[in-house]
């Protein structure tokens, strides 16, 4: 029986979890001798106080939308894809190959090719764990973790031994041609007379990420495939009863998940760095977990949570710049969000449920 009304489920529970994470983070800041209120002010100022700050916040948020959606889609099929990081790394490889080896006349064509490349490579990297889960029952959590490490080794090998331009000591590809440069928010907004920071990295990929949010929403809640994915996620015996093939659902949802994680590369590799470097993903694949949990696996929730984490990321960078608080504070906040919205969900939920129960009894 549902004890809580739906609004409490989708709004109140995540908000309380977030609040708890925020309080603990504030205590951490206090403990290292800084002022949490000043820190928040600094973060807001740095991340949202200028178009430059917004540009970074939205740039990070774009990454997190892709990886958050990736985790969310897998969650709907009751799979925990921790492999977003590795899939995003491989996505970077796909983007690099698409951008380096074809003389694209215009960025839009390059973007299409890069999108396909990123999604294909990310999906391919998710395909192995998915196949092993579907056919051999290997636990997807462990295999995707392993594939993160293997991805790092593959990327390392490719950059050091294959893609590195001759004479360069830097394990990175050469710079992409200027024709594949994606328009930044500055360039997109200028025709509308809106002044946006030139230096900020937010770019056209943001629009792709928003489109991905809408497409994932339509997929999960409006299409027959989405119906099957959700049905399988809730009950595997039920799926078999309804003639939904578990193998097919595991494969398709993991391929979509991996593809979405891979797509992140059009933002960080093509949109920002314009070349592929080692550790380009910077843990965004893992932040996707926090984003999906926080957003309750709903694209709108993922969108909002991604912006929140974009804010935290940019704000955290500002903090590290101006105070003695290192960037790792963001990792701590991320951990606390995962902890409260994911693992300690019941700690928030149980008292709330008994509160609602008492309220309901009092009324009737």
């Amino acid at each position, binding site marked *: 029986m549902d004890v809580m009304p739906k609004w409490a489920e989708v709004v109140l529970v995540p908000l309380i979890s977030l609040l708890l994470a925020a309080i603990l983070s504030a205590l951490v800041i206090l403990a290292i001798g800084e002022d949490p209120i000043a820190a928040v002010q600094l973060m807001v100022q740095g991340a949202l106080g200028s178009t430059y700050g917004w540009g970074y916040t939205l740039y990070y948020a774009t990454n997190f939308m892709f990886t958050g959606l990736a985790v969310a889609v897998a969650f709907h099929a009751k799979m925990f894809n921790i492999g977003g990081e590795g899939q995003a790394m491989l996505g970077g490889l796909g983007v690099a190959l698409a951008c380096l080896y074809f003389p694209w006349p215009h960025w839009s064509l390059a973007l299409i090719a890069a999108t396909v490349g990123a999604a294909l490579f990310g999906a391919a990297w998710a395909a192995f764990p998915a196949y092993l889960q579907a056919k051999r029952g290997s636990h997807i959590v462990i295999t995707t973790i392993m594939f993160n490490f293997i991805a790092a080794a593959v990327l390392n090998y490719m950059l050091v031994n294959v893609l590195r331009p001759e004479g360069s000591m830097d394990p990175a590809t050469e710079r992409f041609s200027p024709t594949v440069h994606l328009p930044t928010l500055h360039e997109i907004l200028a025709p509308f007379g809106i002044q946006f920071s030139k230096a900020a990295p937010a770019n056209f990929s943001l629009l792709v990420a928003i489109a991905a949010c809408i497409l994932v929403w339509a997929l999960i809640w409006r*299409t*027959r495939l989405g119906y099957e994915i959700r*049905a399988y996620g809730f*009950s595997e*015996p039920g799926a*078999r*009863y*309804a003639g939904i093939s578990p193998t097919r659902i595991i494969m398709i949802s993991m391929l979509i998940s991996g593809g979405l994680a891979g797509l992140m590369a059009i933002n960080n590799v093509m949109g920002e760095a314009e070349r592929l470097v080692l550790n380009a993903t910077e843990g965004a694949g893992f932040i996707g977990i926090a984003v999906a949990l926080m957003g309750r696996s709903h694209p709108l929730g993922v969108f909002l949570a991604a912006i929140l984490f974009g804010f935290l990321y940019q704000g955290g960078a500002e903090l590290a710049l101006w105070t003695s608080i290192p960037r790792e504070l963001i990792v701590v906040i991320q951990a606390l969000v995962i902890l409260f919205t994911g693992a300690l969900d019941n700690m928030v939920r149980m008292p709330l449920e008994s509160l609602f129960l008492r309220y309901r009894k009092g009324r009737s």
Partner: protein
Amino acid sequence: MAMNDQTERQDTAAPAIELKGISKSFGPVQANKDISISVRPGTIHGIIGENGAGKSTLMSILYGFYKADRGEIFINGKKTEIPDSQAAIAAGIGMVFQHFKLVENFTVLENIILGAEDGGLLKPSLAKARKSLIELEREYGLNVDPDAVIQDIGVGKQQRVEILKALYRQAEVLILDEPTGVLTPAEADQLFRILGRLRDEGKTIILITHKLREIMDITDTVSVMRRGEMTATVKTSETSPEQLAELMVGRKVLLRVDKVPAKPGKPVLEIENLKVTDEKGVARLKGIDLTVRAGEILGIAGVAGNGQSELLEVLGGMRRGEGTIRLNGEPLALDGPNSDGRARRTQGVAHVPEDRQREGLIMDFHAWENVAFGYHLDASYRRGPFMDNTALRRDTEAKMKKFDVRPPDPWLTAKNFSGGNQQKIVVAREIERNPDLLLVGQPTRGVDIGAIEFIHNEIVALRDQGKAILLVSVELEEIFSLADRIAVMFDGHIMGERLPNETDEKELGMLMAGMSGEAA
């Protein structure tokens, strides 16, 4: 009479167990409401009630498995707190749960000493348990191999291990929750002999069941529960099955469905030499031959776990098999992509599965989503690349009205309906597809009486439209009241077919135990 003296003595002795004013809620559901009961020592006390009446909850409270919200427990006249199972064991209470609580990959001996070890090292504990096991065997005729691993022995033996566990802990009061659900009639009789012997040795037995026959056969006293309340406690010798049934459901019930004799037509489903092997490589169906004709209900009787589930699953496309199945003369695939549930549905097979909560419904889906479940790829629910949710909700409203689903709200999630209304949603979905063959598994398990009548009548109505129906039920009563023909399954074989008016429970019981009709 000696029996009378004994009864009088027991009447004056303090009750072995006395519960006063027990109440217990799970969230918004109240499972027990102000229940009081008194159990005399050295008797077998039955507790009867429908599924969900609160019997198991009450006994779990006595065993310290749940904590009561209110109420008191007296043992041998003394008020006792039972906060956990440890306290219950210390108070001399043992319980055999419906689903056994055994560690599958441990030996019998290890399971028996678990929680009742002597000291920190295992060796002396095991040696001591082995010795007392031999004594217990002698005393009560409960023989099992102490070194056998649980997953290798049958359910009957596993149940004995559970009883031995309780006796090893010196239980004076033994609670058994639906102990015969997984047993053949012969095994059940054996269990009842053991229970009789335990009573004669002075143990007190509490037997939870929903089967009237067991109550009448073995108990001294019986308490009846209905919707979380205790409605009556009577001496078994002074009551009748009809009276108990009425007390259970609160009004007179028709134990038989009104129906006209079947007019069987051409064969719809023909099964020849059907074999199924499960994931572990165990043969579940060992060559089944059956025919179901248009306009008849074929009932499959049998103890749970003898292949009935696998039969339904392979027919419903949830499982692969070997052999031949023909539907209206056309062979159905038993392997490959055309053997899944979707293919079966398009071929005209509908399926009300045995476990509606795990299979038949997605408990977190709205009612309208569940109405499409299995038929979600149907063209009528489709609009371009999307599902036509509006059409689906309209369809759901119509079905809910026709099948009297309460509350008739398509937006409610399945888990928020009662068992009976959940089953009505499943039955509505499957019957309204106008299938040639309807597979029905345990259609009234966990369903309230009102919905049982409704569902039974719908199944008979479908038969009267000339459809073929294959019914699997572990409730013999249900088989007798619905089936036009009865086939009995045992160990993956069909033991025989009978007509309901030419057989009785005793003969079917022999077949269910694997003894062929000729020997009976």
